[in-house]
C-alpha cells in the first residue's frame, strides 16, 4: 500500500475517532472504548476495501457490513456520516429523545446500517444469513461482521461460526475486536474466551491476526480474505479506548461520562463544530 494512502486512511480514522468522541461528549456519555478500538477497521472497510456506494445505500449487490458489537454504533454512524450516507449534523442527535441515532445500531432508522445489533451475539448470525443469501443468488458481494471479544462469550457467536465454517462461506469475514476488556474487567479474568486463533481454525476458518490500529495490516488482511476458499477471521489486537486520553486501555472506557473539561482535554478540534 502506498505511503500516501496509508497516511490518508490514518487521517480519516483520526477524523472519525474525533467525530465519535464529539457525538458522545455532546450527549454527555457513551460507548467510547469499544468504538475507538474498531475505528481503523471501519475506516479500512468503508474507505478502502468494501464495495459500497453511499449514494445507493440499499444497492442489492453492495457488500454488507454488520456491526455485531452494536454498542459501537457511534463509530459506525460517524463513519457513515463522513462517507456521506447522511449529514454530519445529525450525529449531534445521538441518543437524544426521539433521535434517529440510537446508542445501538439500528437498520430501520439509520441509512447505511445493514443490520440492527445491540443484544450481543446476534449480528454475526444475521451476517451468516446474508452470506448464505449471496451464495444462493450467485452474487459476488461479501459480508463483513465485527464481533467483540467479550461478545464472544455469547454461545450464539459460536453457533454462527460453526455454520459458516461448515458451509465454507468464503464470502464472510469476521473481525474479532480483541481488546481484552469487557464492562466488568478483563475478559480473561471474567470468562476466558481467548485464544481466538485456534478456535476459528478448528471451525474451518482462515485466521489472520493483525494490529487492529494498523490500517495497512487491516487492509492487507481483508484483501487476503477476499481470496480465501474458507471464511476468514481477522483477529484485531486492539486497545480499548484507543486515542481517547481519559480512558485509553481501561475497562472503564466501555461507557464513559464526558465532562466539558474532559472533552476539552481530548482536543478534537471541534470537527462537528460543537
Amino acid at each position, binding site marked *: 500500500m502506498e505511503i500516501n494512502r496509508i497516511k490518508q486512511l490514518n487521517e480519516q480514522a483520526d477524523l472519525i475517532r474525533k467525530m465519535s468522541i464529539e457525538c458522545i461528549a455532546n450527549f454527555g456519555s457513551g460507548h467510547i472504548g469499544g468504538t475507538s478500538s474498531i475505528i481503523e477497521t471501519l475506516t479500512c472497510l468503508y474507505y478502502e476495501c468494501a464495495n459500497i456506494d453511499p449514494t445507493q445505500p440499499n444497492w*442489492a449487490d453492495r457488500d454488507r457490513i*454488520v456491526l455485531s458489537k452494536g454498542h459501537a454504533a457511534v463509530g459506525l454512524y460517524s463513519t457513515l456520516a463522513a462517507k456521506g450516507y447522511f449529514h454530519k449534523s445529525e450525529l449531534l442527535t445521538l441518543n437524544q429523545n426521539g433521535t434517529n441515532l440510537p446508542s445501538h445500531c439500528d*437498520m*430501520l432508522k439509520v441509512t447505511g446500517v*445493514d*443490520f*440492527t445489533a*445491540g*443484544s450481543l*451475539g*446476534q*449480528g*454475526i*448470525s*444475521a*451476517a*451468516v*444469513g*446474508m*452470506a*448464505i*443469501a*449471496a*451464495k*444462493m*443468488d450467485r452474487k459476488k458481494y461479501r459480508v463483513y461482521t465485527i464481533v467483540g471479544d467479550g461478545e464472544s462469550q455469547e*454461545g*450464539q457467536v459460536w*453457533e*454462527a461460526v*460453526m*455454520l459458516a465454517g*461448515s458451509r465454507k462461506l468464503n464470502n464472510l469475514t469476521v473481525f474479532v475486536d480483541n481488546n481484552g476488556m469487557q464492562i466488568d474487567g478483563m475478559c480473561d479474568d471474567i470468562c476466558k474466551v481467548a485464544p481466538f486463533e485456534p478456535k476459528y481454525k478448528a471451525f474451518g476458518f482462515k485466521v489472520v491476526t493483525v494490529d487492529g490500529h494498523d490500517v495497512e495490516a487491516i487492509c492487507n488482511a481483508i484483501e487476503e480474505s477476499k481470496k480465501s476458499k474458507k471464511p476468514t477471521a481477522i483477529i484485531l489486537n486492539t486497545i480499548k479506548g484507543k486515542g481517547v486520553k481519559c480512558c485509553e486501555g481501561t475497562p472503564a472506557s466501555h461507557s464513559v461520562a464526558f465532562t466539558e473539561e474532559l472533552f476539552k482535554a481530548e482536543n478534537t478540534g471541534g470537527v462537528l463544530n460543537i
Partner: protein
Amino acid sequence: MSELHKKEMRAVYTDNLIKYGKKNKNIVVLEADLMNCHGTKKFRDAYPTRFINCGIAEANMIGVAAGLASCGKIPFAASFSPFATRRCYDQIAVSVGYTKMNVKIVGTDPGILAQNNGGTHMSLEDVALMCQVPEMVVVEPVDTVSFDKLFPQILACDKPMYIRLQRKTTAPIFEDDAKIDLFKANVVRKGTDITIVASSIMVHRALTTARSLAEFGIDAEVISVHTYKPLDTDTIFRSVKKTGAVISCENHHLIGGMGQMIATALMENDIRVPFGMIGISDRYGEVGNEKYLADIMGLTEQDIYDKAEEIYKKK
C-alpha cells in the same frame, strides 16, 4: 370429505413450500435438525440450495433467517414449538421483530401435542410469548384444509409471523369449499345461546360439545380462530352480542392466552356477558398421550360442556 384430511399437517407444509417454492425462488427453508420430523427433506431434495439445516442451534437459525430476510428471502424456520419460541425469544424479539424482518417461524407439536416428549418439550406459553412481539402475526391453522388455504396468504403477508402447527393428521373441521381468510375467524356452527371460541385441537372438541349441548337444549355457536394476532374481534363480538354468553377453549396456558385476549377485548368494548375459559392452568406439562394430557389438564369435551353449561346458566 376433503382428500387433505388424509394428509398430515407437515405434508401440507412441505408440499406447499415445494409448490410455491417453484415459482417463488425467495422461499428458503431452515431446520434445526428436525427435517425428518417435519418432512421438509422433500423440499431439500427439490431445492437443495434453498434448504439450510442449521444443526441443533435454534438461536442461530433465527438470526440466519433474519439475515436471509434482509437480503429479500422469505425464510421458513421450524422447530418444535418450545425451541422455536422460548429458546430463542431474544433473537426473535431483536433480530426478527425489532427489525421487522419477513421471517416465518414455525413451531410444531404445540401445547399437549408434545405428548410423550413431555414437559421439557411442551410449549404452553408460545402464543403468549409471540403475541408480545410487536407487529408479529400469530397463526395456528386448525386443520389441514385451512392450512392449505392459508399458506398462500401467509406467504403474501410480509410481516414477521409465528405459525403454530399441529404436525400430524388433524381432526377435520373444514371442507374444500370453505372460505378461509388469514385475518378472519370462522363461525363453524351457528347457534343462539352461547358462543364457544376455540382454536387448535379445541375446535373439534368444541363442535362435538356443541352437539351434546344441543341435546340438552343449549344451542351453541362455535367460532374457529386461526389467527390469534391480530384477533378478529368483529366476528367474536357479533356472535357474543347475539348469544349473550361466551367461553374460550385453547391448547395453551390461560395466562396470556386467547381467552384473556378475548376477555380484554370484550371489557374494553363494554360487552359485559357471562364469560369462562378452558385452557391450561399455571403448570408445566408432562409425558402422556393426547387423551391423557387433555384429561389431566382440563381440555376434554366434558370440561367444555361443564364450563358452557355453567356460563350459560349465568345469563
